[in-house]
């Protein structure tokens, strides 16, 4: 004896006609704010398509009336950064490199800028970690052919080494001894020179005599080289062209061949100074009072 329900629970809305196991899907109307949101997004899309690049065409997308492009955006940001760094660049160009380390803000700027310059321009030969390779100097160690103060490094970067492009390039030319000394003498010299880091007296024995006659004018009586000529120190543990007998023989018979281009044609003075500061800060840089 149940009373009929007070209200009729049968839905007043039509169904979509879908039915699963007797469960039907009602076709309820959506709320109106939803409709307006949908219209809003459509309007937004139309406006967007007009203003911004949107439709892909054969030769790129439509431009949009604002003329905005990602490339232009990047360009704009680069210009902004350039403008914001103008002061730092100017003061870097003017500063005496010998006292650069007294200005912490400037040195930080130079180190960061120099790192970027190095990665782009120097890492091809010297390696991304600046460890160099056979024939390409390791910039991390404390051995410098032409001097290890910031100003020395900046000069090397500016003018390069052993190149024909820049009259001010650093130039050292060791002769090819294959035309000067017989093979046996070269073999004796190779053994002698390879023993120098071990503490052998550069002028002792048969090798010493050959060394005195042929090498001391550049590398010095003590074998420690001469930076003014770019003559390397032969008594230290660092061998630019390798320390195996074959490598040393080759450099004596043929002479060195490494070339570094001048960078003043491609880098600004600020960039050169920045990269010099960066290289100087890699662990081997020398301070104004040269240690020997």
């Amino acid at each position, binding site marked *: *004896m*149940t*009373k009929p*329900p*007070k*209200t009729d*629970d049968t839905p*007043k*809305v*039509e169904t979509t006609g879908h039915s699963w196991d007797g469960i039907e899907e009602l*076709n*309820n*109307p*959506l*709320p*109106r*704010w*939803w*409709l307006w949101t949908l219209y809003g997004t459509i309007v937004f899309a139309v406006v967007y398509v007009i203003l911004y690049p949107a439709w892909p065409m054969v030769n790129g997308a439509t431009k949009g009336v604002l003329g905005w492009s990602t490339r232009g955006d990047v360009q704009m940001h680069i210009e902004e950064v350039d403008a914001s760094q103008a002061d730092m660049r100017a003061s870097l160009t003017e500063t005496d490199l010998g006292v650069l*380390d007294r200005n912490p803000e400037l*040195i930080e700027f130079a180190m960061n800028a120099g790192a970027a310059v190095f990665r782009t321009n120097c890492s091809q030969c010297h*390696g*991304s*970690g600046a*460890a160099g390779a056979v024939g390409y100097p*390791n910039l*991390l*160690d*404390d*051995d410098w052919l032409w001097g290890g103060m910031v100003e020395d490094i900046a000069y090397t970067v500016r003018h390069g080494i052993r190149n024909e492009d820049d009259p001010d390039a650093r130039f050292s030319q060791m002769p090819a001894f294959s035309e000067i000394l017989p093979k046996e003498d070269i073999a004796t010299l190779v053994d002698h020179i390879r023993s120098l*880091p071990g503490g052998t007296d550069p002028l002792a024995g048969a090798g010493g005599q050959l060394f005195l006659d042929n090498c001391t004018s550049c590398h010095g009586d003590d074998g420690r080289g001469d930076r003014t000529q770019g003559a390397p*120190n032969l008594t*230290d*543990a*660092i061998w630019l062209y390798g320390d195996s007998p074959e490598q040393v023989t080759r450099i004596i018979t043929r002479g060195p061949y490494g070339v570094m281009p001048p960078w003043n044609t491609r880098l600004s003075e600020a960039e050169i100074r920045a990269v010099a500061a960066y290289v100087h*800060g890699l*662990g*081997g840089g020398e301070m104004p009072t040269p240690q020997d």
Partner: protein
Amino acid sequence: MSDAPQNLYAARVPIFPRRVSGYFRRLKWWIMAITLAIYYLTPWLRWDRGPNLPDQAVLVDMANRRFYVFWIEIWPHEFYFVAGLLVMAGVGLFLFTAMLGRVWCGYACPQTVWTDLFLVIERWVQGDRNARMRLHQAPWTVRKIRLMGTTWTLWLIVAMATGGAWVFYFTDAPELARQLVTLSAPPIAYVTIAILTATTFVFGGFMREQICIYMCPWPRIQGAMMDPGTLTVAYRDWRGEPRGRGLRRQAADLRVAGPQIGGRAPLIPMPGVPDTTTNVQGPGDCVDCNACVNVCPMGIDIRDGQQMACITCALCIDACDQVMEKIGRPRGLIDYLALSDAPREAAGGAHIPAWKHALKPRNLIYLAIWLAIGAALVSALFIRPQIELTVAPVRNPTFVTLSDGSVRNAYDVRLRNKHHDARVFNLQAGADSTAALQVEGHDGANVTVPADAQMKVRLYLTAPAGSAPAASDNSPVRIWVEDTVSGERAHVDSTFNGKDSQ
């Protein structure tokens, strides 16, 4: 079903909740006052951290990547504290939902709190339910424009205060307030305020229940977290039905009370809930006065049974309790009930008190998880060091041979000084190390780290020619940092690569 094409879209049916008073309404006033006070006032609290740091008690300093919460300071690498708090908030929500259903929605959700606040304004300007309904239907007279204009203006002021308060959490509040007034604040501040003002105004003033019904994901998630033992707002249909007033009450007849809560909801068998369909003698306690419907901010009738739109704000309980008092019946025709209570009480069983429902194993497990995370966070907070370092060996190249034959390794060391003043940190290699230590760009091994900052330095360890570390493949090395003021020490173990590592 009619043949006329049905509208694709349905207009919102405006809701004019009536004012109600009672226990739950009072509770909600308090919660509203406290949550709003916390929200608006927190950025203005000060907390002295010394001259180098901001003195705002709660500050999210995006630019410097710091979170300040009173005496706690969170660095980016400690973000797990924030993640932990969020996990706790999540588990806490599980706990409360399993215990009390959509209690978050009904009491603490900003949508509910701000809608409540907007309703207070609306009621204050336009009057209670009937007056507002009349006004709604009235043509646009000067009076209506004035009343509506006043309401909307007040809403807008509240909305702007809401958006305005938000930005104060992200920078020094008094300073930003000054900038905002003098129109010199950063554009992002104005944009943020504008967006939050707009959302507050629209959501609190016009969207209201539609946010809960259509937009918010919480109701769905919370619905899945409830079980038959969860307390929720429900109508004791076995007591109320058959409803009616006056003569119809007299004519009330026998009827069927179902196992569901609510008289008209479809009969859905619930797993674990026995079917206790019984015949009940009428008339019921419900006088069909519609008080419960009129106060409902969601515009629903709780007597239809549990339904998705109900945010369990409990206002209908207050409304019905008042009616029951007037007609001299016991309170609680609408009440906090568990789904599993319905068949038991309908069959004449005793009411189970709320705390018994709360002590379910599931809730206790949630509570245990919540407490465990909390305890872990608190202990992590107390044991975290004031100085820290990370050491990354430079592997490009692995080592450098120096002109005297010694071997040098480089390490990128990050030093963190969490003290509120600059400290001189002294770096050392482990006592058993033969390697000499240098810091690039510094004389000696002392580095000054600014207050509350992190500093990256390049560290060199140089092993003499022929020494064991220089000649071997790699050997362990310990790098120490010592705060020269407090003597605090920290260390990191790393590796030294020798010539054999090539």
